[in-house]
């Protein structure tokens, strides 16, 4: 599946955050998008994930604008950001089973169990998330994003809170996704952790995306 962002513009109140950000994401790519604080990375991530409407421009999946097929588009995208997008009062398994069922993921429970085990969270599968540490929570966040084996992955600061072992597992999972033909965009400050798997790098500056040297 090809993700294409065409001249995305977004402003909040009187501040223009994105001018004409354009991007093309092909299967098998892992693109790193970096940029200064406040450059609009998270806003762009939310727009790519269809959570936020751009003021101008559009997002297309395989040539079809996401606004035309929103439900299908959302099910094709795995999104993680600094907001957990989980219910803290529920356990990891309950969260994943719930979201899996709603997203139409086949055998959601089994898939969830497998992911939690991979990310070493299976021992905590029945503990409400409110008791989790930052790093533990992040692992569950990533499990939710990867649950349906989505063809598009949009991960905003995925390494935040992860220790070295966690980062390595994430990289392994992303490499596997890549082999499956998934397209990933990683939004991250520090390029070191992502370096082993990144295929292309971009920079978000002045509301535009530029190819990084």
């Amino acid at each position, binding site marked *: 599946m090809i993700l294409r962002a065409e001249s995305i513009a977004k402003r*909040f109140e009187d501040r223009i955050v994105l001018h004409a950000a354009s991007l093309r994401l092909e299967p098998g790519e892992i693109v790193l998008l970096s940029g200064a604080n406040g450059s609009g990375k998270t806003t762009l991530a939310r727009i790519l994930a269809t959570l936020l409407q751009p003021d101008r421009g559009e997002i297309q999946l395989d040539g079809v604008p996401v606004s035309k097929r929103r439900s299908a588009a959302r099910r094709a995208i795995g999104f993680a950001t600094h907001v957990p997008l989980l219910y803290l009062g529920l356990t990891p398994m309950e969260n994943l089973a719930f979201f899996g069922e709603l997203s139409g993921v086949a055998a959601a429970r089994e898939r969830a169990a497998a992911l939690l085990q991979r990310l070493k969270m299976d021992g905590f599968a029945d503990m409400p998330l409110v008791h989790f540490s930052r790093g533990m929570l992040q692992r569950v966040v990533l499990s939710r994003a990867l649950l349906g084996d989505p063809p598009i992955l949009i991960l905003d600061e995925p390494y935040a809170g992860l220790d070295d072992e966690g980062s390595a597992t994430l990289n392994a999972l992303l490499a596997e996704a890549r082999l499956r033909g998934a397209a990933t965009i990683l939004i991250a400050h520090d390029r070191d952790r992502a370096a082993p798997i990144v295929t292309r790098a971009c920079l978000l500056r002045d509301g535009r995306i*530029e190819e990084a040297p």
Partner: protein
Amino acid sequence: MTAQLPGWWRMCAIGIWAAAGALIAWSLWSVAARAPVEAVMGPVQKIVYIHVPSAIVTLLAFGITFAAGIAYLATKQWIWDAVGAASCEIGMVFATVVMVTGPLWARSAWNTWWTWEPRLTTFFILWILYMGYHLVRASIRSTSRRTVSAIMGVVFFVNLPIVWKSVEWWRGSLHPRNVTMTGEMREILLLSMAAWLVFYVAVLERRLRLEWMREAALSEADAAASAAVPLKGVTA
């Protein structure tokens, strides 16, 4: 879009303000000098010449907000949001006038400042609801404010007839049903209504002009910023 309004708009604006000014002056003078003093209530009765037109303008204003809301939801054009919000602001002002002049009149006519009878209750509810509209609108920073405002404009207006009917049913009406006036009083009332309606249009124009300029300024800033940064190595 440019910050310069089209010529015909500015001509009409001048015309409307002139008309509003003239009509208001004429109606105020008529109320003061020409309108007969009512036998029972005395001069206080003349509040009705402000009260009734204000109520009519309020309902018209909120009706326009309702229509603009539907138009915005259908077309997503910012101008409908601007019309709806502007109309609602002006409506609030007139609604407040109604809420202030009403009790002043009521004290004299019914010997009480307030009573929970249908028209007053419904109007009070209307006042609260549309105050809520502005509170909500002010709290939302981004352009989604337009959708939310449109929805509020529609939902609140749709609800009003039901609220009105329910309260009427519940209480029975004390407020005069129709304004039955004859002769000169009627004429002056109609004049006042015309005056305040034109005034409403004039203020609406001003408010829309402000929105237009704001949108224009933002588009210009956007265009300028886009032009300033050279396009290098854009990932197409």
